[in-house]
C-alpha cells in the first residue's frame, strides 16, 4: 500500500478513526507521518490531517480541473492540499461549493448553531424573520389571499431598511 500523501513510499503508519458511524482510514509513510506530526500525539490532529486531504480532493473536483483561487488572499487548492488550512476568511466563499460537501462529513451539521456576536445577532434575527415572511407571502399570493399578502409586504418593508445584510466573509 502506498502512502496517501506522497503516493510514492510504502505506507507503514496506519490510522483508523471512528466518528459516529463513519470509519476513516489513513495510511502514511514514515516521512509524511513525521512531516504531518502524526508521530507526535500532542501535535497531531487526525481529523485535521484527514480532512485536509479530503478537502483538497473535493475542491479539485468542484473546480473541474481549473484552479480556484481566492481573490482576497491568492490562496489556491494546491496550497490547501499542502497545509489542510485555508488562506483567509474570504476563502470560505471562494471554496464554498466544495466545502459544503466536506463539512457534512466533518461536522454534526452544515449550519452554525450557537453563539453569534451581539452586534450581528439582531440583524441575523431580522434576516430570519424576513425569510419567514417572504415564504408566507408567496403562499398568500398562491392562495390569492391578497389582503394577507399586502399586510405581509408592509411588514417586510418595515423590517428591510433596518436589516443591512450581515457582513459576509
Amino acid at each position, binding site marked *: 500500500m502506498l502512502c496517501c500523501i506522497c503516493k510514492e513510499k510504502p505506507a507503514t503508519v496506519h490510522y483508523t478513526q471512528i466518528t459516529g458511524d463513519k470509519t476513516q482510514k489513513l495510511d502514511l509513510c514514515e516521512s509524511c507521518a513525521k512531516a504531518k506530526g502524526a508521530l*507526535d500525539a500532542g501535535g497531531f490532529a487526525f481529523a485535521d490531517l484527514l480532512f485536509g486531504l479530503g478537502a483538497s480532493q473535493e475542491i479539485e473536483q468542484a473546480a473541474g480541473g481549473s484552479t480556484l483561487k481566492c481573490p482576497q*488572499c491568492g490562496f489556491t487548492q494546491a496550497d490547501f492540499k499542502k497545509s489542510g488550512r485555508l488562506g483567509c476568511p474570504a476563502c470560505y466563499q471562494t471554496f464554498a461549493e466544495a466545502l459544503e460537501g466536506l463539512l457534512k462529513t*466533518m461536522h*454534526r*451539521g452544515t449550519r*452554525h448553531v450557537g*453563539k*453569534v456576536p451581539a452586534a450581528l445577532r439582531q440583524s441575523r434575527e431580522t434576516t430570519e424573520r424576513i425569510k419567514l415572511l417572504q415564504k408566507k407571502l408567496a403562499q398568500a399570493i398562491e392562495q390569492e389571499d391578497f389582503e394577507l399578502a399586502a399586510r405581509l409586504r408592509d411588514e417586510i418593508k418595515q423590517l428591510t431598511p433596518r436589516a443591512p445584510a450581515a457582513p459576509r466573509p
Partner: protein
Amino acid sequence: MQLDQFLTPPAETARRSGPHDRIVLSSRVRLARNLKDAAFPGWAKKPERIRVLELIQPAVASLPQMKDAFVAAMDQLTPLDKQILVERHLISREHAAKSAGSGLVLNRDESYCVMINEEDHLRMQALRPGLQLRQAWAAIDALDTELEARLPYAFSNDWGYLTACPTNLGTGIRVSAMLHLPGVVLAEQINPIIQSVNKLGLAVRGLYGEGTEALGNIFQVSNQMTLGESEAAIVERLEKVLAQIIEHEENAREVLLEKKPKVVYNHIGRAYGILANAHSISSKETMNLLSLLRLGVDLELFPDLDRALVDELFLITQPAHLQKMYSEKLSAEERDVLRADLLRERLKNVKRPVIRPPNGPTSAPNP
C-alpha cells in the same frame, strides 16, 4: 517581567483543587477566532502577522480579566521558557514553535491564556482545576463577548466563526478535560472506552508520548465537531461522557483491589521503590511511575504522602522545568541523574506503601 517570576511556583499549582480532581486533573475550553480582513496566520506574510499581533495583543491585554497579565511576543521568549509553558499546558507545541508575529497574554492566576497567531488569529482558553467545564465555558464566553466589541471578528451567518481549518468552523470551540486513568489502564479497559467515546464523536488521546502510548496514564477527552451544535450542547455532551469515564475509573480501582490486590500492590510498590531509590531515571519512566504513586495515594496506601507532592513532582521532573533549576545546559543523561536525585530527596521521608487488610478501610466512595 521575566516569565519564571510571573508563573505560579509548581508547589502551589499542584495545590489547586477542583471537583473530582482524583481523576479529572483539569478542564479547558478553547475558542478559535479570526479577524475579518486579514489572512490566517499560516498564510499571512510576516508584516501582516505583526500588524495583526499589534492590533490584537493590546485589545486582549486591556480586558478586565487580564489585569496584571503576562504579555509577550513569542520572539521575546527563550526556547526554554516556551517549553515551560508547554509543560504547564498553557500553550500548544505549535505555538511554542512560533516566533516573530505571534504572541501570548496570560492572566495573573493562569486561568486564562490567549495565544495570538497560533493557527488562528486568536486561540483563547479558560482553564480550571478538576471537572469544571461549565465554569470554563462561562468564563471564556464572557471574555469573548468583551473582545468582540473591540475586534472585528470573521463571522458568517451560515458557518459561524471562520477558522483557518474547516474542522474548527462554527463555534470554534474545543472543550476538553485531562484525565488520570491508571485503573482502567491496569484493568485493560482503556481501549474499549476509547472506542466507545470515539463513536460519540469525541476524541481521546494520550496527552504525553508518541503514537498510541499514553505516558502517565493521562488522557485528554475533547469534542471534535464544532459546526451544527451549540456550545452548551457540546459542553453537556462532554460532561455526560466524563461522568461515565469517572465511574469506570472508580469501579476499575475498586474491582482491581478486590480481585487482584497483589497486582495493584506490586505495581505501586515497585513504582515507589524505583522513584525513591533510582540514581538515573528518564522523564518517560518518571511519568509512568508517578502515575502509580498517585494511584497509591488515592487508594490510601501512603498515609504520609500528599497528592500535591506527586503532582508537583510530575511537573518539575519534566525536561524544561528540570533544566530551569540549573544554570548550565544539561544533556539528557545529566538530566536523568539530576531527576533521580530530586526524586530521592523529595521522597526520602515517604514511608513504603502499606498493605490494606482485607475488608479494611477503603477510599472508594461506596464501601
